[in-house]
């Protein structure tokens, strides 16, 4: 590593510069070229990043990163259809992160230029993200991701009340939330906090009247996920916010799956706390954010240097902040076009699958849903086996057999999907780098795979000969 001279440092410490340079470098055929420029020489000393980005091409948002190969003959480079689990980091985001390593200072060092430069990067990043979600940057703190944001929100609100002498508290959430919410609530229950896990309807959506009726005198907080990670269903957050406002309770929204997929306008909705996670929108892993509306009282649950308004102690990861902001910027730019493209691909895929195969069930509401998601039960065949037939595609299954605990999906169970069908379900989630050709091939392949597996399924034979599987007396062995 060469020594950073002041002149270089000051020329690269502005995040806007970094964004602009990053775009420029991606106009070249490879990052290698851009790395010839002396300004980011250092970042290119990082071999892995250098190698990974050789295929980085045009400045198009749809430029496929080299790590997402389309070479279908190689199962280790399967077509990625698991964008709810995570997304590949955009090469332009990787570039921006690399460049920001020029600035190594600790943003909490307030006595010298290195620290001030780092602070500038963090604050510029914060402002970018805040403006995308239409909030004030003072209302946004950086965290390690949505799990931490959810924990701070739920535990922090409870703790703040406890510190003010309130002990009898009630929280409302739903039975399809992410584990980061459910497990936090379970933990609080151990400490005497009452929690209602509201059942959602069969389409995965929350009934507003039921939500309204669940609010009690001692209810302090509702925690609702905006877009469900398994179903892609979109909860009516604006209406939920109105109810919370009317009833005087706080609303926390887990928006990890929402940013980049649907419009988030915090000036238009009544939400007190909102969680975000960068790796769900083509940013780096290990960083997220928490929106905390002005005057919302949240106590810290981690202690240290009192960074991030004292709510989240710990050195702010400057580079990840830069990456998150860049990713948010890119995803927001293309959000509306992507939504339309996803709608078209989803419709085409579902139309072909449902017209070619019998006994196909799409789980969760089809309208109030991000079009990226298709959660489908392929009756009479098991989800894991279906994925094994489709080795050229990376997906996830709700089947017990594909989980490490042998427990089937609690989300599908919660919306009343028959246990027999849960095992047959796949979650197919498209994203920025999914092409129409990918989905055309996928559709052909899945139709063939389902037919092949049904040919060897005794349940399919029974169905065809008119046997009602519900009336069969089964021998259970475990």
């Amino acid at each position, binding site marked *: 590593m060469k020594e950073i001279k002041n002149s270089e440092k000051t020329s690269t410490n502005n995040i806007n510069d970094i964004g602009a340079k990053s775009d420029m470098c991606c106009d070249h055929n490879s990052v290698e070229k851009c790395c010839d420029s002396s300004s980011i020489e250092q970042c290119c000393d990082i071999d892995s990043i250098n190698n990974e980005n050789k295929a980085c091409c045009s400045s198009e948002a749809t430029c496929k990163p080299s790590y997402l190969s389309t070479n279908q003959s190689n199962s280790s480079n399967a077509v990625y259809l698991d964008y709810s689990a995570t997304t590949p980091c955009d090469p332009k985001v990787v570039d921006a992160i690399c460049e920001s390593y020029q600035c190594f200072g600790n943003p909490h060092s307030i006595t010298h230029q290195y620290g001030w430069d780092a602070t500038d990067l963090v604050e510029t990043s914060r402002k970018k993200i805040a403006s995308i979600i239409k909030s004030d940057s003072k209302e946004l703190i950086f965290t390690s991701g949505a799990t931490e944001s959810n924990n701070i929100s739920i535990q922090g609100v409870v703790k703040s009340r406890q510190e003010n002498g309130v002990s009898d508290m009630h929280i409302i959430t739903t039975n399809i939330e992410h584990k980061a919410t459910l497990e936090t609530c379970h933990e609080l229950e151990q400490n005497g906090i009452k929690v209602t896990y509201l059942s959602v309807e069969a389409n995965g959506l929350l009934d507003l009247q039921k939500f309204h009726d669940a609010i009690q005198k001692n209810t302090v907080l509702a925690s609702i996920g905006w877009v469900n990670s398994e179903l892609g269903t979109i909860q009516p957050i604006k209406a939920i916010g109105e109810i919370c406002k009317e009833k005087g309770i706080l609303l926390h929204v887990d928006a990890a799956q929402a940013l980049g997929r649907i419009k988030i306008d915090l000036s238009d909705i009544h939400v007190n706390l909102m969680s975000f996670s960068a790796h769900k929108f083509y940013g780096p892993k290990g960083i997220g954010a928490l929106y905390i509306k002005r005057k919302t009282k949240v106590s810290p649950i981690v202690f240290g240097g009192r960074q991030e308004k004292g709510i989240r102690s710990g050195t702010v990861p400057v580079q990840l902040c830069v990456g998150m902001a860049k990713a948010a910027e890119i995803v927001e730019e293309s959000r509306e076009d992507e939504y339309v493209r996803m709608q078209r691909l989803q419709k085409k895929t579902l139309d072909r699958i449902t017209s070619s195969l019998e006994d196909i069930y799409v789980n969760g509401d089809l309208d109030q849903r991000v079009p990226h998601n298709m959660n489908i039960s392929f009756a009479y065949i*098991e989800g894991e*086996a279906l994925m*094994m037939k489709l080795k050229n595609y990376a997906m996830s299954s709700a089947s017990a057999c594909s989980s*490490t605990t042998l427990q089937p999906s609690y989300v599908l169970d919660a919306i009343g999907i028959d246990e*027999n069908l849960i095992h047959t379900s796949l979650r197919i989630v498209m994203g920025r780098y999914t092409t129409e050709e990918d989905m055309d091939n996928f559709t052909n392949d899945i139709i063939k795979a389902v037919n092949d597996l049904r040919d060897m399924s005794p*349940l399919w034979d029974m169905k065809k000969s008119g046997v009602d599987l519900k009336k069969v007396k089964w021998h*259970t062995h475990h």
Partner: protein
Amino acid sequence: MNRYNEKINETFKNPKNVGSMDETDPTVGVGFVGSPGCGDVLKIYIKVDDEDRITDVKFKTFGCGSAIASSSVLTEKVIGLKLEEAKKITNKDIADELSLPPIKTHCSVLAEEAITEAIADLISKRSQQAV
């Protein structure tokens, strides 16, 4: 999906003896075990000659990759065996052959139950005929 070994992957990809037989045939024994709620159902058919030798085996399975691979291995193991020999096959034989991960042991248990039930079914059919 589990990260399976090549043996399981290969067997799943090219399973042997998939099919069915006429269940009313008195020389055919059927084993039908598992449940859709548990995620796996195995149906095995054995055709047995007068000397108690299994001359043909077929299976159909609803289940994960391990369940299908276990079914296929079972059919290959029992074909050509005398009923008394087939009875001695245990889940461990199948699990070992496929190096099943521990979490998938139940797939091999299901296979053992299936052959046991198929033999019992055949014997029961024979005794009914004898009456």
